[in-house]
């Protein structure tokens, strides 16, 4: 008889524990939302990349300027850098594009190079295009002028 009571208690305990974990799993809300891990994540709403003549204003001094156009057709890899088609020393005037800053030709020891320094080669490590998204929090931030 005692044995039966023990088994029933153990079964109850097990049931409690498992049901507990199940509710815990359901209540976890991550960046995925409440979507099940197995399921597909929510579709991201599509945002258009902004083309803005004259570029974007900076938010703070020395901010890498943001890219005011689409960049999906230009590739940067070890062989070539598509951005330089317009932003290079040679072509920027003709293309009416800003030339990459003088700092981009310096090595970390301050030596000036003929070509873009390898540490500044991958443009979109610092420069990013912008989409027509609303700010996450309403604010009246103004950048430096």
């Amino acid at each position, binding site marked *: 008889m005692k044995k039966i009571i023990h088994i029933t208690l153990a079964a109850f305990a097990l049931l409690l524990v498992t049901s507990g974990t199940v509710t815990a799993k359901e209540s976890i809300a991550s960046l995925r939302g409440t979507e099940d891990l197995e399921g597909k994540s929510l579709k991201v709403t599509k945002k258009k990349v902004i*083309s803005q*003549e004259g570029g974007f204003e900076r938010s703070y001094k020395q901010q890498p300027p943001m890219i005011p*156009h689409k960049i999906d*057709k230009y*590739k940067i*890899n*070890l*062989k*070539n*850098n*598509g951005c*330089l*088609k317009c*932003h*290079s*020393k*040679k*072509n920027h005037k*003709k*293309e*009416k594009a800003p030339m990459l800053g003088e700092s981009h030709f310096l090595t970390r020891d301050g030596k000036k190079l003929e070509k873009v320094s390898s540490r500044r080669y991958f443009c979109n490590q610092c420069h990013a295009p912008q989409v027509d998204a609303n700010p996450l929090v309403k604010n009246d931030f103004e950048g430096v002028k």
Partner: protein
Amino acid sequence: MTNGQKKGTFSVLLIGIILGIILWGGFNWALALTNTEQFCISCHEMRDNPYEQLQDTIHFTNRTGVRATCPDCHVPKEWVYKMIRKIQASNELYHHFIVKDVDTPEKFEAKKLELAKHVWKAMKDTDSRECRNCHNFDSMDFDKQESRSADRHEEAIEKGYTCIDCHKGIAHELPEGYDPGEDAPDGENAG
């Protein structure tokens, strides 16, 4: 003419017609068959290198699903030029079967600048004829283009630039050794 002679002439004519249909038809059939992408990528050199790279570009994947196949850009549509290109293609067979100098991605990569320069030169010489099979200045609405593109296209018409002067590496990756920052349509081309 006797009856026998008549019969003879008739049969010669008939044989000629049938032979003509078979030969000319077969020729055209072979021409059409070798002018498909499936034929181009039946060689691993084409399948693994240019075709692989094409798939990342707007000429393969885009909003409307209209796409260009290999021969659309690399084989002229006009008969005479098409024949010339077809004969030149024997050189490609020679390199595929005998020289074997592009049969690995590494070898291909090493030779890519040279190969690209050949194509750029060909397109420059023909005023980008194959591009213009689809892309036509007369049908371009500059109001619908971005202001930068519109400005440059107007300039191109005025100064007589050709498509390939600016649009290099739009259907395959650019080769190593070519610097887009040093190439400008009126300057010295890398090619």
